[in-house]
């Protein structure tokens, strides 16, 4: 019986020209979204490559000069000497490439957060939070993070990525196909015709749903696979396919939510136009209004301390540190190591002082910064709690986890970057303080950043509440909707 109704529904749908347009739009949308997500990824990859290439070039030049210097010494004999930091090329003497302080402070190593196989599926905040972070002895990590640059107008609009398509547009397609699930049959009068036959309302409803879900989800999932195969990466790795399986699961759950909502609204037995209004309104509230309200609530309840205050505090700390630890001249030379006349002795002190200086600033600002972080964490927790108010939030959080563009994975990355920063500092500071000239061989020993992916259980446990929340919501709505079918009035009185 159900198969018969499904086949019939499919046939009727196939003869609805509007459906073809709808599906054509959906297909075009998915293709466009996959392409846009891919472009966003490519931009980051290009940025990381260009930055790394420049820094490699800089270090390569230094290495070349050290190589030449070593060769010269081999011919002329003599000890390798330490060199002052000097921006301008000098004739004869040791090149600045032998100075560990110069190499460690004047060049940066880029720590890169690798993209997952599905990163094109949800851009998340990755268009803002830089996933290639410069690490050198100069910067104080963690407090001043550089951000990716882009046209702010574009950032406001956001990327037309597959996550947007799934979260915002897929529900519209689903609702367009289901808002008149029963009401249209009732308005046309065919509902009475059907129910005069031995068919239960429940069987009719579920078959009609199945016919629509089959078409829509086939399109989404097949094209999702298509997007993965064309713009995904790491297709050989199991991780990618587990992520894709999760993606499918999340999309199914999210779609089911909207199908269930349409059932529920249809069960009230109002007209198609009424259902249309109610469903369009629900979409707006759940997808647009609630997320912005939760966001507003988070920033109102836990306002982050002003970054401007943080800046002012940092500068106060800087002034205090300077006044305490350095004479003005030292400061001057710190900024211009190349001008230090008696470099052999002085330079060491400046770098030592500079490092001490940074440490003092960091220490002074740390409490304020931690307060800042604590508020952000509270905001994040609030969002975690209030996500259940909107399937769109749950879905966004899940998709970010699945695509590896979540805030938590970024934090995981940044912790490794901080670790790497310490490693980098230690490597160069040790050699610098010992006034040990860098050799060509040392260049091979420079610390290299390699990202260690968090165990898969971590993102899984983070997205579990979201996915479970969605599942519970689907079950509740579906159960309520189908239970309410018993009260459905087939005939007006």
């Amino acid at each position, binding site marked *: *019986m159900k198969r*018969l*109704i499904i086949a*019939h529904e499919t*046939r*009727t749908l196939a*003869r*609805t020209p509007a459906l073809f347009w709808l599906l054509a739009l959906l297909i075009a949308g998915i293709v466009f979204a996959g392409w846009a997500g891919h472009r966003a990824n490519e931009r980051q990859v290009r940025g990381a490559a260009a930055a790394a290439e420049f820094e490699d070039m800089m270090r390569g030049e230094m290495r070349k000069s050290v190589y030449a210097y070593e060769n010269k010494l081999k011919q002329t004999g003599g000890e390798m000497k330490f060199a002052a930091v000097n921006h301008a090329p000098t004739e004869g003497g040791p090149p600045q490439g032998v100075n560990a302080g110069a190499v460690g402070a004047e060049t940066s190593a880029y720590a890169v957060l690798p993209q997952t196989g599905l990163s094109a599926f949800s851009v998340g905040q990755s268009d803002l939070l830089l996933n290639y972070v410069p690490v050198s002895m100069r910067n104080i990590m963690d407090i001043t993070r550089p951000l990716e640059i882009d046209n702010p107008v574009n950032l406001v609009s956001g990327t037309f990525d597959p996550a947007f398509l799934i979260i915002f547009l897929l529900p519209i397609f689903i609702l367009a196909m289901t808002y008149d699930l029963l009401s249209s049959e009732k308005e*046309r*009068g*065919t509902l*009475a*015709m*059907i*129910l*005069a*036959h*031995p*068919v*239960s309302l429940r069987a009719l409803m579920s078959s009609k749903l199945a016919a629509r879900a089959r078409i829509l989800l086939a399109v989404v999932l097949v094209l999702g696979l298509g997007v993965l195969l064309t713009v995904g990466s790491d297709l050989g790795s199991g991780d990618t396919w587990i992520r894709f399986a999760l993606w499918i699961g999340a999309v199914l759950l999210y779609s089911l939510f909207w199908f269930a909502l349409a059932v529920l609204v249809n069960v009230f037995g109002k007209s198609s136009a009424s259902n249309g209004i109610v469903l369009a309104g629900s979409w707006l509230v759940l997808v647009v209004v609630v997320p912005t309200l939760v966001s507003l609530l988070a920033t109102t309840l836990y306002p982050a301390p002003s970054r401007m205050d943080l800046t002012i505090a940092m500068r106060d700390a800087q002034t205090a540190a300077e006044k305490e630890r350095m004479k003005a001249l030292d400061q001057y030379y710190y900024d211009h190591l190349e001008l230090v006349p008696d470099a052999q002795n002085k330079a060491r002190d400046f770098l030592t002082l500079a490092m001490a200086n940074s440490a003092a600033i960091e220490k002074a600002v740390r409490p304020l910064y931690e307060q800042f972080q604590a508020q952000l964490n509270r905001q994040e927790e609030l969002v975690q709690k209030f996500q259940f108010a909107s399937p769109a939030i749950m879905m966004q959080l899940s998709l970010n986890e699945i695509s590896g563009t979540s805030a938590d994975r970024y934090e995981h990355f940044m912790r490794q970057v901080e670790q790497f920063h310490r490693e980098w500092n230690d490597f160069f500071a040790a050699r610098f303080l010992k006034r040990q000239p860098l050799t060509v061989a040392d260049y091979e020993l420079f610390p290299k950043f390699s990202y260690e992916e968090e165990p898969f259980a971590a993102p899984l446990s983070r997205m579990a509440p979201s996915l479970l929340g969605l599942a519970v919501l689907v079950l509740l709505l579906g159960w309520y909707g189908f239970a309410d079918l018993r009260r459905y*009035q*087939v*005939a007006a*009185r």
Partner: protein
Amino acid sequence: MLQAIDLRKSYENFEALKGLNLEVRGGDIYCLLGANGAGKTTTINLFLNFIHPSGGSARVNGHSVTEEPLKTKRYLAYIPEQIMLYGNLTGLENLEYFARLGGHDEYGPAELRAFLERVGLQAHAATQRVSTYSKGMRQKVGIAIALAKQARALLLDEPTSGLDPKASNEFSQLLLELKGQGVAILMATHDLFRAKQTGTRIGIMREGTLLRELGAEEVSHADLERIYLEHMQ
């Protein structure tokens, strides 16, 4: 075959049906007469389990329609005032769909066509989309659906209103044919003439109560009209 036992239906502010007792046997054509709002359509909807009775029960072939809704619907066929079909399917496709919904998967295209032929639908119309049909043509498909279902009871809600006299007459002939096959027919109608002509029994309803039942042979057409108007006073 069709049996209403103290059947009641009330809404928040009024009673649509106040304890109806009625029986239609196989081979009967029972015509329900009455003004709009008398409770005729309510009765039919109750037999179809489209609405839930507030009291009493409606039975089809001895089974309660509320307890065994799917089983009782196997015996029933329903022809409303406006037969509504899927406009973007052809007459034949509509018939096939409903026949199979009724559990009759066995019909081939030839048999389905034969049903449409039997109710007098032009052969070329069978493969046209229903959205191009006139009301009479749709009504014919509706009867074909009832025939294909091999229903033991037929529920008709003003089936001839809006039909031209010729179509109306053809419709009556078909009813008589079904009556001959022992089908129980319950028909709500305003058409006293047809009721007298085709009906075997006639019931007159007013404000949810069956006021009078009479055999069609017992009265002349003129008497029927007089009795009817008396009850409507």
